[in-house]
């Protein structure tokens, strides 16, 4: 399988890791005060990737659906939580909205990709299911978090206008649709940008990996095309879902804008800063 792939020793990896000193030097020379964060980020990169390497090695070898599915669920949950941590304002239930929208959209689209397009066998084949879900989750989480962030910030900034629209007799959807549209647009733009430059400016990691592993570039490109559309579909679906869930939390059926539910994210941020 890895006919064309050089095996990397830990020494080889360590040499690459020394390149972090470039960033460290930049930080010191320009007084960016990033050395500690840089060291922490570098350590996390190494530890997290080594750990997932061992976990995946074990999961691939063990190859049982009751191991693969919980791992996928855990990945989804982490993506959902990460997707809810952006933005200056939040509301009760935002994390659940993020998890639900990411879960449904990513799993639905991954199912289409794995069962209809790639037709994996067995149905839980981990070397397909896990990386493909992972790529979908990473991008969906970006869309969802940007969408929710834009929705809450637009509603905060346009609070008076939304309220005025309702006072004039707008339904809750008529009053919310401007901010909701902007939010969905904000969530979908990163994927659109990515699709516009893929292959020209960026060679996606998965494609690069397949080529390095000796796969024919033409096959690798086909996989990448499939992945791009899976990502686009899932992040679009997830963003719309998250924005609609936020809308339902922030507007009542009595056509009221529940602006008091939008709270600043200070308490948790303070707690985090205190640590």
């Amino acid at each position, binding site marked *: 399988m890895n006919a064309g792939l050089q095996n990397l020793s830990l020494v080889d990896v360590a040499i690459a890791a020394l390149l972090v000193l470039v960033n460290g030097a930049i930080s010191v020379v320009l007084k960016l005060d990033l050395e500690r964060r840089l060291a922490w980020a570098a350590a996390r990169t190494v530890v997290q990737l080594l750990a997932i390497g061992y976990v995946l090695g074990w999961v691939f070898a063990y190859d049982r659906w009751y191991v693969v599915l919980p791992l996928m669920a855990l990945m989804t949950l982490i993506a959902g939580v990460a997707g809810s941590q952006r933005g200056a304002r939040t509301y009760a239930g935002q994390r659940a909205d993020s998890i639900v929208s990411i879960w449904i959209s990513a799993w639905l689209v991954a199912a289409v990709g794995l069962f209809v397009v790639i037709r994996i066998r067995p149905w839980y084949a981990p070397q397909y299911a896990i990386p493909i879900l992972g790529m979908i989750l990473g991008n969906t989480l970006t869309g969802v978090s940007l969408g929710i962030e834009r929705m809450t910030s637009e509603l905060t900034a346009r609070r*008076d*206008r939304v*309220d*005025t*629209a*309702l*006072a*004039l*007799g*707008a*339904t809750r959807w*008529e009053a919310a649709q401007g901010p909701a549209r902007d939010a969905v647009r904000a969530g979908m733009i990163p994927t659109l940008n990515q699709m516009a430059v893929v292959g020209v400016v960026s060679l996606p990691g998965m494609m690069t990996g397949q080529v390095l592993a000796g796969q024919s570039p033409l096959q690798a490109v086909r996989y990448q095309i499939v992945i791009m559309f899976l990502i686009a579909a899932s992040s679009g679906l997830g963003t719309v879902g998250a924005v609609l869930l936020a809308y339902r939390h922030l507007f*009542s*059926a*009595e*056509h*009221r804008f*529940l602006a*008091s539910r939008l709270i600043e994210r200070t308490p948790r941020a303070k707690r985090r800063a205190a640590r």
Partner: protein
Amino acid sequence: MTEPRSAAPGAPVPLVAAQRVARRDAARGQILLQPTDLTLDAGERVALTGPSGSGKSVLLRALALLDPLDGGHVLWRGRAVTRARIPGFRRHVAYLRQRAALLDGSVDDNVRYPYSLAVYRDAAFDAGRAQALFERAGRGADFLARDASELSGGEAQIVALVRVLQLDPDVLLLDEPTASLDPESARAIEALVSEWFERDRAARATVWVSHDPAQALRVGTRQLTMRAGVLSEAPHAGVAQPQEAAR
């Protein structure tokens, strides 16, 4: 839902009736509005005064069903307002906020906006009428083309008022609409409201929240005061309060 309000035979049904409406600040556990009854009959002009933070705006927003109530309900012509009818109710009972919130775009875009809403499906924008209202407020023919973001506070409030008046509401709830305006704009606002009222005074009513006792006497035939969330009918016995800054 609720039966028509039991009234003496022959007595007219009030336009708006608030029954035991109450509001609480859930976060602070503070009472914003004690259970309050208020009936607003056709032909009535109510002036509502009281110190800042006493709950005047809270009551007005409750009457427009804009905030969730913690008790009581609001009847429109003797009937409870169901969820689906709330936008229609707000067409009849228009709420004007203290600081006008205008959309991006021109004055024209702003006065046209309501006609894009489902509740005004049966109504059509009448540019001549909007123009005439602006002229009454001393604004010339080019005013409709002005950019909303370039208007002064007084001009913006005139736009917000014309946007509402052209829709022929039955009740106007005015939440200190002139509190931070120059005297000329304030007079224009008062004149526009009074003209609208006089055109069909038997069928219309206003509640005007004001900090200014002199204005309260000008715009109201029935004087109410609010103190710490308690509403009382008060003959306006010169309880002259210093004119406070906007809430």
